[in-house]
C-alpha cells in the first residue's frame, strides 16, 4: 500500500482473489473442457469457443472482484429495477424460439433472466441489510413480493425452470437471514398444497417432462428416450468408466444434447463413478469455500449475498445431476461451468467475482 496508489480508483488495486477458490474453479473448467472435447467428437473448434467464453467470464470475474461490496450495495436497487424493466421489455417485444427470453440490444443478445439471477438475491440482501434480523412477517412479505415480480415475469416467458431457480435464490436469502423454522415449515406446507395449482398452469411440454420422469418406458422412442439413454450411459460407465473418448453412448449418438445439458452423462460414461465423485468433490469444495467466505463477510449484505449465490450454484449442480441420473425431470438446466454454452457462464463468473470481492473486503482485515 504505497502512498502512490492512493489516488487511483478501486480498479487498480491488487486482485483480491482467494487462491484456493480460484484453483478449484480452474480445475473444474479444465475438467469441463476435457469432457467437452470428447462430447463434441473431438471438435477442437467447440472447445476453443468455450475457452473464449471462459476468457470473457474471467474478465467479468476480475472486474466484479474489484467492485467493493459497499458500492455494489449502493447500486443494488438500480440493478434490480433495470432487470425487472428488461424482463418486461422482453415480455413485450422479446424474440426467441418459441419462448420469449432474449433481448436484442443490437450489439449483444442476452437473457434478462440471467441478470435477474444476480440482481434478485442482491436486492433481498440489500433490503434485509437495512432491517433488523431475523426477518419477521413484514420483511417476509416484502421479500416475497420482490421475488414474485421477476419470477412471475419469467414464468410467462415461459421458462418455468429459470423462474423456479430465480425464486429459489431469493428463498435462500431469507433462509440465511434466519427466517424462523416455523415460517419455513409453513411456507413448505403451502408450497406443497400449491403444487396442483402449479400443475394447472404448466405448459403441456412441462407436464410431459414430469410424466416422463415417472414412467420413461411409457414413450421410449419419444420423450423417454433422453432419460433412458442417459441412464444407460451413466450405468455402463461403471467404477472407472470406458475411458476418455470411448463412451459409446455419446459417440454413437444415443445420448442427446451430449455437450450441453447431458454432458455429465458423458463424464459418467467415460470416467465412471470415480470421475463423478471427483467432480462432486470439486463442486463441494467450491461451495464450502464460498460459504466460508460468506461467514467472513463484513456486513449482512455481503453475507447474505455470498451465501445465497453459493447455494443457488449448488442447486444447479444438484438439479442437473438429478436429471442425468433420472431423479428429476428433464429440465433445461446446464451443469455449471462444464456444459457447453455461453449464457450462464457470464452470470456465474460475475457471481464468483462478487464473492471474491466480499472475500477481499472481509472482516478483521484492516480496511483503508
Amino acid at each position, binding site marked *: 500500500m504505497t502512498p502512490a496508489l492512493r489516488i487511483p480508483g478501486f480498479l487498480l488495486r491488487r486482485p483480491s482473489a482467494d487462491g484456493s477458490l480460484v484453483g478449484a474453479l480452474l480445475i473444474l473448467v479444465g475438467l469441463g473442457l476435457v469432457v467437452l472435447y470428447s462430447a463434441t467428437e473431438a471438435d477442437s473448434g467447440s472447445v476453443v469457443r468455450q475457452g473464449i467464453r471462459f476468457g470473457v467470464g474471467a474478465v467479468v470475474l476480475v472486474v466484479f472482484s474489484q467492485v467493493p461490496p459497499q458500492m455494489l450495495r449502493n447500486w443494488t436497487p438500480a440493478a434490480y429495477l433495470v432487470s425487472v424493466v428488461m424482463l418486461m421489455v422482453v415480455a413485450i417485444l422479446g424474440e426467441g424460439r418459441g419462448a420469449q427470453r432474449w433481448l436484442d440490444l443490437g450489439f449483444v443478445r442476452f437473457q434478462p433472466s440471467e441478470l435477474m439471477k444476480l440482481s434478485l438475491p442482491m436486492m433481498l440482501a440489500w433490503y434485509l441489510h437495512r432491517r*433488523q*434480523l431475523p426477518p419477521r412477517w413484514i420483511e417476509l412479505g416484502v421479500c416475497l413480493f420482490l421475488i414474485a415480480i421477476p419470477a412471475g415475469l419469467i414464468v410467462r416467458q415461459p421458462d418455468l425452470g429459470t423462474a423456479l431457480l430465480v425464486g429459489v435464490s431469493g428463498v435462500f436469502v431469507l433462509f440465511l437471514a*434466519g427466517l424462523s423454522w416455523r415460517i419455513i415449515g409453513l411456507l413448505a406446507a403451502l408450497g406443497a398444497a400449491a403444487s396442483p395449482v402449479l400443475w394447472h398452469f404448466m405448459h403441456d411440454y412441462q407436464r410431459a417432462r414430469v410424466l416422463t420422469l415417472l414412467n420413461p418406458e411409457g414413450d421410449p422412442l419419444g420423450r423417454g428416450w433422453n432419460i433412458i439413454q442417459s441412464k444407460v450411459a451413466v*450405468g455402463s460407465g*461403471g467404477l472407472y468408466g470406458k475411458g476418455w473418448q470411448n463412451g*459409446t453412448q455419446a459417440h454413437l449418438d444415443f445420448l442427446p444434447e451430449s455437450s450441453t445439458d447431458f454432458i455429465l452423462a458423458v463424464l459418467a460414461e467415460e470416467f465412471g*463413478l470415480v470421475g463423478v465423485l471427483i467432480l*462432486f468433490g470439486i463442486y463441494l469444495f467450491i461451495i464450502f469455500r464460498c460459504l466460508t467466505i460468506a461467514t467472513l463477510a463484513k456486513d449482512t449484505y455481503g*453475507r447474505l449475498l455470498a451465501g445465497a449465490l453459493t447455494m443457488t450454484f449448488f442447486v444447479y449442480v444438484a438439479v442437473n445431476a438429478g436429471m442425468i441420473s433420472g431423479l428429476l425431470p428433464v429440465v433445461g438446466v446446464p451443469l455449471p461451468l462444464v456444459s457447453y454454452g455461453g449464457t450462464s457462464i457470464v452470470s456465474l463468473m460475475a457471481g464468483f467475482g462478487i464473492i471474491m470481492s466480499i472475500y477481499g473486503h472481509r472482516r478483521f482485515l484492516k480496511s483503508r
Partner: protein
Amino acid sequence: MKRPAYKPLKDTLREAHLFRVRAWIGFALIVLVFLILATRFFYLQIVKHDDFITQSEANRVKIRAVPPNRGLIFDRNGVLLADNRPAYRLELVPEQVEDLEQTLERLGRLITLAEDDLERFEQLRRARPSFQGIPLRLRLTETEAAAFAVNRHRFNGVDIVAYQNRVYPFGPSLAHLVGYVGRLGPDDLKKVDASDYAATSHLGKTGIERFYEDRLHGTVGYEQVETNAQGRVLGVLESNPSVSGHDLFLTIDVRLQLAAEAALGERPGAVVAVEPASGEILAMASNPSFDPNLFVNGISAQAYRELLNSRYRPLFNRALQGGYEPGSTIKPYMALAGLELGVITPEDTVFSRGFFRLAGQERRYRDWKKGGHGRVNVVQAIEQSVNVYFYELAVDLGIERIHDYLAQFGFGQPTGLDLLGESSGVLPSREWKRRVHAQPWYPGETVIAGIGQGFMVTTPLQLAHGISALAMRGETRHLHLLHAVRDPLVGDIVNEAPPPVREIPVADWQNWEVVIDGMEAVLHGSRGTARAVMADDPGYRMAGKTGTAQVYGRSQDEEDEREQDELPEHLRNHALFVGFAPTEAPRIAVAVVVEHGGGGASVAAPLAREVVQAYLELP
C-alpha cells in the same frame, strides 16, 4: 442517516451468528444432497452396472427418421396431377465416413456426381447433424444402383435409399398452377420445423406445392433400427410410422385446362376459366410454360438460364402476375357504375361523331370507328364498344367514383387466390397518383380511364374475378383452387368449406340485366363487335366484352386492326376478352389475354368461345 430512537438497534454480532448457524445448516443439507446423488450414481454405476453395460453393448439400436409420403394432387375429377414414384438415391452419413474427400472421390469414379450435387451435399452437410444421412445423388439409374451395390462394402456410411420421386404427368400443362417441389436446401431448413423435415428431401417451391406445403408434407415418422458396428442398418425393430400428407383435389378440370391450352396454342397469353357460382377455378393457363419435372431434382444451371432468358419468360405466371391494361373489357363495369349512381339511364343516348373533346381542350379522344357510331344508348354502347359514350360517362362519374365502384369487383387488389405471388394490379385514383407518381390527377386521364386505358392494370385472374361477379349478378364467391382434401388416415374425400359469398349490392336489380343485355349483344347483336364468334348459333347465349390493351401507345383507337398488322409483333396490342355463358344461368366465366394478339374481337373472343364450348360439351 440517523435512525429514529424507538427502532431497535441492529445487533450485528447476533446477525452474524445467526447467519453462521444457517450457513452451516445449509452446508450440511448440501452435503446430504450430494450423498444422495452419489448414492444414486453408485446404484446406477456399480449395482446396476452389469444391466446397463449389457444394454449399452446391445445398443446397436438407433433412431432413424422416416420421411412421410407427400400428398398427391388431383384435379376435381380425380385425375392425377402430381404423383410420387419410387426411385433410389445415394445417401452418406458423414460421421460414419473416415475420409470424406477420398470417399467422394472414389464414389465419383463409380457414379456420376455433378458439381451441383456436390455443392448441395456440402451445404446440407453443414446444416444437418453428422449422424443424419445426407442425399448425395438423386434418381440413380439401375446401372448405377447395381454398380454401387456390388461395391457397397468399400463404402462405410454410404447407402442406397429408396424414396419417392415427385412426377408431374402433365408436364408443362398446369406447371404454373401446380408448381413443383425442389430439393430441400439449408435456407429451407430455417423456414420449416427442422425435426419434422429430418428425413425430407424435397419441399414445395412454387404453386400449389408451395402454398399447401403444410398439408402436403405430412408428419415425420421414426423407426428404431438395429445397426452393426459401422452403423449400417441391419433391421427395423420398432417403428412409429410417418403420416402421409393430405391428398389435394383442385377445382381444376384437366380436360378444360388442356382445351384452354390448346386454344392458346403457341401464342403467349393467359386463360382463366371460373365456375362463377362457386368461385372455383376450372382452368388457368399461362403460355408459354415449362416442364416442372426438370426442377424436381435440381435443374442444370444452363437449362435454368435458358428458361430465365427466354424471350417470352416461360417461368412467369401470366394469369397470376401478368399486368395488362383492361381496355374495353372495363366498359360493362363503367356502365353499371353509371346506372347505379344515377349518372345515366338505359334510355339516355349519346351521339358519337367519331371523337370526344374535353371542354376547352383541343385534344381529340377518338372512337375506333371513323366517323363514329351515331346515336347510341348504353346497351348499344357496350355492343359496339362506343368509346365516346364511355368517355362522357367517365367524365360525368369522375375518377373517385370510378375507383370506388370498380374496387367492389376486386380490381386493384389481389383476389386472394390460394397461390403465392399474386399481383394486385392498379386501380388508379387521385390519392394513388399522388402517392405513386407524386403528381395531381389530370382530367384527360379520367377520359381514357372510361375505356380502361391509362394507369389501370389488371391480371387475367382479376378479369376473371370481376366477370364472374358480373355473371352472377353480384352474388359470387372468392376465387379458389382447392376443391377437396383427403386425409389418408381417414380415407374420405372431404370438400373444402367454400369461401364466403361476395355480394355486390345494387340499387336496381334491373341494372344487371341492362349491362348483360349489352354484353350479350356483343356476341349476338347485329352490330356486336364479336358477333362473328357466335354466328353458328350453338343453342346457348353467351355474354362478353372484347378489349384491346395498348402496347404501342399511339391513339385511343379501339379495335383498330388495320395498322396493327404493319407493326412488329412485340409492339402489337394485347387482345382481351371477358365473358360467360349461358347468359341467363352462367356455368362458366372466362378471361382471355393474348399478348400481342392484336384485336380482342378477332383473336381473344374466338378463343374464349372455344373454351366455353369445350366446357359446355364436357360429359
